């Protein structure tokens, strides 16, 4: 069709964790601007497959911005140049004809590359397993109205809870710090009465696991907040710091 974009893609290719990896160039021709970024990559991959070459591996699933599976660092921006947008919701109308687009995986020691643009984010699961929950058995819950929660706190808890666990915060941070991710969960539960009994224990354990996974530290640049597709506020990091410091002072 006419009016399509012709783009040069510089894509990170890496056969596996042991491979050194390199950037390779591909042409994406006649791309409809209404396509999503991943649909553009689908087209490139269809071309690669039919010509017998290995397609570019990348993670994706829901393609509606909520599952957190898609990643990619596009011209240095995790999830691309649009604010508050996942890669799957990024559309090619954000680019111009003739653009050169560099596509790299989320880079962090704690997110080893599996292949091409796919990384292993299981470190996030392990951090959650260290304490990102309320210890409540199924069936043991009191009536939902037993404990009222002020609307303001409920809304703020929700804002923190919208984290999709994609790892863009880690990818954006120059120190590959996971504090926005961890802070979001700590804050979500510390704002609710249900989260109080384990509040300090949770902050301590999750931070410990976060450190053991090899994520870096916060330098208060707030790139994480700017890259977060759910626009989670840096405030969650401060809350986590407060909870952690209180927990450390008290015990």
């Amino acid at each position, binding site marked *: 069709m006419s009016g399509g974009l012709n783009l040069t893609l*510089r894509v*990170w290719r890496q056969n596996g964790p042991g491979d050194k990896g390199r*950037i390779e160039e591909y042409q994406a021709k006649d791309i409809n601007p209404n396509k999503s970024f991943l649909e553009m990559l689908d087209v490139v991959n269809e071309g690669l497959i039919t010509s017998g070459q290995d397609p570019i591996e990348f993670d994706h699933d829901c393609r509606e911005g909520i599952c957190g599976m898609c990643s990619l*660092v596009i*011209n*240095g*921006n995790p999830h691309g140049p649009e604010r508050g947008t996942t890669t799957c919701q990024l559309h090619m109308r954000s680019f111009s004809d003739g653009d050169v687009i*560099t596509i*790299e995986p989320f*880079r*962090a*020691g*704690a997110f080893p590359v599996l292949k091409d643009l796919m990384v292993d984010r299981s470190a996030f699961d392990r951090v959650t397993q260290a304490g990102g929950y309320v210890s409540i058995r199924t069936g043991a819950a009191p009536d939902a109205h037993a404990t009222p929660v002020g609307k303001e706190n409920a809304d703020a808890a929700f804002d923190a809870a919208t984290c999709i666990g994609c790892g863009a915060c880690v990818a*954006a941070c*120059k*120190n*590959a*710090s996971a*504090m926005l991710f961890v802070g979001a969960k700590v804050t979500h539960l510390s704002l609710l009465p249900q989260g109080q009994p384990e509040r300090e224990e949770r902050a301590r354990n999750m*931070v*410990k696991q*976060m*450190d053991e996974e*090899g*994520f*870096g*530290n*916060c*330098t*208060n*640049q*707030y*790139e994480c*907040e*700017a*890259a977060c597709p759910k626009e989670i*506020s*840096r*405030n969650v*990091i*401060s*809350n*986590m*710091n*407060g*909870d*952690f*410091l*209180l927990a*450390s002072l008290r*015990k």
Partner: protein
Amino acid sequence: MTAAITRSKGFINSSIGLKALMAASGLVYVGFVFVHMLGNLQIFLGAEAINVYAYNLHHTGPMLGKSGAVVWGARIFLLLCLAIHVFTAVKLKKQNWQARPQKYAYSHTIQATIASRYMGFSGLLILVFIVYHLLHFTFMPERFAVAYAPTMEHTIHGTSVAMHNVYGMVVASFQWAPVAIFYIVAQVLLALHLSHAVASVIQTLGFDQESKRARVQQISTAYALLILVGNASIPLAILTGLLQ
């Protein structure tokens, strides 16, 4: 007791613990630079004012050599804070490098401020400056400062005392342009460092509030500018001949 040691070790080894130590030690210096500046600005009141101020400062408490115990206490405390600040900075930096072993081919920042991006750089140069500054005006003025009359007679409590001629030392030193310019540059870096630091302390110690965030950053920037103007005014005044 052992439990307490294990816990504090855990705290010191944790990312947030390190950051809190860095923030707290930095906070001491945020206060110190202000008090230090107030002392220095007395130079504009003339030789007697600053020389007497320095004399009194160094003669508070029992004398241990050339200075009183209070000054020694302050020195040790400040040195300890500096050591903590530098130690945590080095340790954090090392961890941060390890956290991203492979860099991006295309690097880009979205909203990081210049000050925040050059904290390590400004901090390192400030450290160099501090060493020079201590040698220059505190420990070895005879080697580092330009020749000046070492003492001056001033009257306190009705008696005349020969005091260290701080005024003469400073004026003589800054009349040499390279030294004055080096000091001014150091103050610019200090201001850059402070503009990020003051707001960061609030965030790191867990006091951030969305509604007050803009105000905190304004205060941080204003404070950094205040220190810059106050401290840089001295070499500038001397260099331009306002102070002789």
